[in-house]
């Protein structure tokens, strides 16, 4: 019977956040602080011929003006894993603090530190930049054409014109004839192309960094990064400063992330540090919402080609997948993301012959990087549409076709870790029941202009980035001299509740009272290295390290206590911060002073000098039972006055395990206008064990609503001059509270052994399937092909009228 795992513990940061007392990077100030503002390129592609900062420097209140010519130019990549990637993908370090050539509208050209934001903005306008405008390309096909301009030096695009890094092939190596043989077995083959548009994370807190560079060269940065430790490493590289002189911290909260700041938060940290170096004062850089839209990583727009072959009984025999992702002006995550698109899409169904070919393409648009799902939503949309089309062609129910082919626990597959568990079949059952799947096909009996449809999608994801990226964690658990416990882990809580879930793992593993446990997190000065929070890895990977640290601490405590009890350590356990015999688990014990235990008496007698006088400062514990126990406080104090602290250390590389999910949607389409209304969503997730079910539900629900936006209304389009058209919340339509349908959320518990207490990844999973399910529902309602997201009213209207 678990005390903390699976329990809806109230979030530890709840009171801070509902009272406004909790601080975010945008709230932090420092004495003598200056404000930094960035000058950005108005051109999508332009050489910078000359920068004249003289007028700007003269403006009263301006303390520094910086640009490519007067800051370090060590190349880096703002994306964390890219900087520390595994050997078989070479790092693409194609970014500088300020560009030497503008590659998109918004590229950082210069920055000013001044005594107010207003003055800094005014000074930016006084910087004179002479540009030589170059031809620009915005689309994938356009950028790959032979006559397209080279956005980066061709040396870094050896695979082809504007092709980022290496082409991803699954399986690796040159193609064999296995795939063709697979298609030869097919009775039906469907081949389709799909396009998805740019989506934006729209986390509520904008990018922010307060950098304090001191005269001794030490650098402190309070910022919005999701990965403090890797960000520290990036800053060390960018500035040529030892990492040991740098401290990066969230102070302690981050207002959302969704992938927008894995690594640097746009350029806010590097610009703030550079300005602080130049002015020798603290400098704060806070992005505006417009800068967030135009100059921070978006989701990749994509073109995905699917060719699926099946036998007439519905068995899938071959799948050929191609993915092209528009990574914009800089690589950030563009090298590895196409791999995730391919891998996660190929992994859903058990298909004997599979192949993936994919890569990113540079264009003169806002860089695309990591956004919740990381390529998976794009591939999922494409394949799940084709599965529905296949079902229709075969005359089979779309749910049954999926159930027949989904990968099952223990199935062999191509991923470098086992398919260790899957409750996807149960997820499908739950969604189908909730949405009323049996009604599908019978919803539009009359000739009303309102058409109803049901759709479903299934998918998988990861529980961290091992072994695709460098991925590991450390944690320590230090028992204080009063028995209270500090857990230290460098995670970032951007809303996922990891700063509550990890203490739940720790408290469970250690046996300590909830109120005695405090977590220190995010600050690189007081936590050991963790790769941070992305890839849905918090609970699984960081939880593994925390569990190891707690178990290590527990072992040290039991080893020590065993000497006092004069039993072997295996005979003892810790429960509710009381060390007691194992047989007394779940039962009361009489808590005694450790000095009265037989081993302690022996120790005292054998001591060459009298032992230290034990002050009566340990609180008595008034429980009773036939056996004896000692409080953790009593033991910790006993040890402390004998010069010992129990510090458990966890150093772990996680394995990986697939979470699974199913989403079903019911929609209503007004065929006279093309508008789509979502009536109901059902989402069922196999996350193994939900450490905190309420938190997991919150992640799923948030993902569903982001998915509604991805499906119907969210996109960033560009005009012919390469300028973003959607640059504010008034143009970019995320769902409001009045846009949310009924949502049924199901956590389906599974039995995976690889993660802490059976947990698997959850964070990104919520956004993998909802748009695919809605697309399938719309296609079902209208009996049309849906091949593009988002399904705006205008696009749907065209589909209806060109049918």
């Amino acid at each position, binding site marked *: 019977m678990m005390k903390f795992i699976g329990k809806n513990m109230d979030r530890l940061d*709840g009171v801070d956040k509902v009272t*406004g007392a909790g601080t975010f990077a945008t709230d932090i100030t420092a004495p003598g602080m200056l404000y930094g503002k960035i000058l950005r390129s108005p051109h999508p592609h332009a050489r910078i011929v000359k920068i004249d900062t003289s007028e700007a420097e003269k403006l009263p209140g301006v303390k520094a003006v910086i640009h490519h010519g007067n800051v370090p130019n060590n190349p880096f990549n703002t994306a964390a894993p890219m900087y520390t990637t595994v050997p078989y993908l070479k790092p693409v370090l194609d970014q500088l603090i300020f560009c030497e050539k503008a590659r998109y509208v918004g590229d950082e050209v210069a920055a000013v530190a001044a005594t107010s934001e207003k003055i800094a903005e005014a000074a930016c306008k006084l910087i004179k930049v002479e540009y030589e405008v170059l031809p620009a390309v915005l689309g994938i096909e356009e950028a790959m054409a032979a006559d397209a301009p080279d956005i980066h030096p061709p040396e870094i695009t050896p695979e082809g014109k504007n092709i980022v890094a290496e082409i991803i092939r699954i399986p690796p190596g040159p193609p064999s004839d296995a795939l063709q043989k697979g298609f030869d077995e097919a009775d039906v083959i469907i081949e389709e192309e799909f396009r998805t548009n740019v989506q934006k994370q729209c986390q509520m807190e904008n990018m922010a960094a307060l950098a304090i560079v001191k005269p001794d060269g030490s650098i402190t940065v309070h910022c919005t990064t999701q990965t403090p430790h890797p960000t520290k490493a990036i800053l060390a590289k960018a500035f040529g400063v030892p990492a040991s002189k740098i401290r990066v911290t969230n102070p302690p909260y981050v*207002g959302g992330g969704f992938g927008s700041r894995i690594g640097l938060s746009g350029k806010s940290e590097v610009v703030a540090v550079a300005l602080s170096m130049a002015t020798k004062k603290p400098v704060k850089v806070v992005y505006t919402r417009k800068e967030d839209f135009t100059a921070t990583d978006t989701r990749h727009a994509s073109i995905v080609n699917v060719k699926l072959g099946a036998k007439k009984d519905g068995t899938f025999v071959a799948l050929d997948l191609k993915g092209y992702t528009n990574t914009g002006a800089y690589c950030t995550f563009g090298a590895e993301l196409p791999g995730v698109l391919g891998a996660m899409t190929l992994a859903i169904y058990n298909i004997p012959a599979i192949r993936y070919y994919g890569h990113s393409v540079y264009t003169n648009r806002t860089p695309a990087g990591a956004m919740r799902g990381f390529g998976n939503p794009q591939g999922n949309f494409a394949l799940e549409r084709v599965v529905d089309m296949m079902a229709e062609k075969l005359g089979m129910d779309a749910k049954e076709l999926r159930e027949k082919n989904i990968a099952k626990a223990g199935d062999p597959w191509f991923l470098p870790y086992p398919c260790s568990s899957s409750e996807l079949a149960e997820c499908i059952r739950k969604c189908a029941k909730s949405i009323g799947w049996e009604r599908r096909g019978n919803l539009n009996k009359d000739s009303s202009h309102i058409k109803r449809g049901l759709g479903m999608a299934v998918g998988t994801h990861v529980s961290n980035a091992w072994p695709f990226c460098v991925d590991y964690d450390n944690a320590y658990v230090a028992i204080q001299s009063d028995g209270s416990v500090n857990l230290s882990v460098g995670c970032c809580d951007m809303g996922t509740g990891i700063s509550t879930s990890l203490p739940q793992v720790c408290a469970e593993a250690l046996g300590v009272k909830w109120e005695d446990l405090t977590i220190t997190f995010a600050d690189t000065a007081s936590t050991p290295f963790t790769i941070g929070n992305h890839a849905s890895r918090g609970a699984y990977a960081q939880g593994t390290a925390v569990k190891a640290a707690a178990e290590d601490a527990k072992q040290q405590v039991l080893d020590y206590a065993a000497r006092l009890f004069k039993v072997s350590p295996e005979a003892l356990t810790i429960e509710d911060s009381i060390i007691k015999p194992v047989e007394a688990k779940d039962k009361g014990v009489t808590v005694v002073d450790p000095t009265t235990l037989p081993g302690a008496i022996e120790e005292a007698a054998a001591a060459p000098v009298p032992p230290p006088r034990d002050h009566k400062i340990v609180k008595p514990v008034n429980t009773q039972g036939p056996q004896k126990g000692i409080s953790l406080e009593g033991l910790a104090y006993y040890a402390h006055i004998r010069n010992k602290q129990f510090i458990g250390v966890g150093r772990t590389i996680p394995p990986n395990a697939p979470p699974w999910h199913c989403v079903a949607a019911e929609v209503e389409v007004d065929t006279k206008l093309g508008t789509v209304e979502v009536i109901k969503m059902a989402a069922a997730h196999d996350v193994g064990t939900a450490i905190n079910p309420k938190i997991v539900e919150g992640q799923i629900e948030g993902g569903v609503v982001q998915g509604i936006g991805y499906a119907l209304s969210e996109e960033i389009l560009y005009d012919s001059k390469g300028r973003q058209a959607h640059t504010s919340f008034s143009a970019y339509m995320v769902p409001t509270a009045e846009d949310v349908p009924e949502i049924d959320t199901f956590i389906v518990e599974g039995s995976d052994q690889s993660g802490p207490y059976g947990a698997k990844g959850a964070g990104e999973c919520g956004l993998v399937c909802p748009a695919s399910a809605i697309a399938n529902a719309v296609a079902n309602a209208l009996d049309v092909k849906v091949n593009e997201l988002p399904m705006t009213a205008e696009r749907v209207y065209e589909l209806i009228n060109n049918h």
Partner: protein
Amino acid sequence: MKKITVNFTLNGDAVEVSCEPDKMLVDVLRENLFLTGTKIGCREGECGACTVIINGDAVNSCLIPAAKVMGKEIQTIEGVADKGKLHPIQAAFIEKGAVQCGFCAPGIIMSAKALLDKNRTPDRGEIREAIAGNICRCTGYVKIEDAIRHAVRVLNEKSARGGEK
């Protein structure tokens, strides 16, 4: 530029601020009064992170010149708890899991409070209308609505027992 003096009531206390004449209320709250609970999400009135209550109405403080609030009664998130005791709305947000990153929370709690201070029996449409001007990207609004409905129940129970408002 000559500074102006603005007097208003903030969370029940009389307050006097000296600031530039064109400073916006949200900046006066955060910078002059060091109350950083009210957040800035967009500065365009499009996200509600800056929501405060003025004379009983929820408004976007990023669009209100400080000068405009002369003589008015303003409530911010810092004034919602009563001497450390959480308001039922705040307690409900924690209990129902309605808080994730917390950046929208102050604004959305103020919108909910403005509603419940006037209307103790809101229907679903009225609750949604009250918070539709607050963007939350984390929760999908589901548990936020649960929390507000729960707060309604708690507040009505308190009244029924003759308790505090």
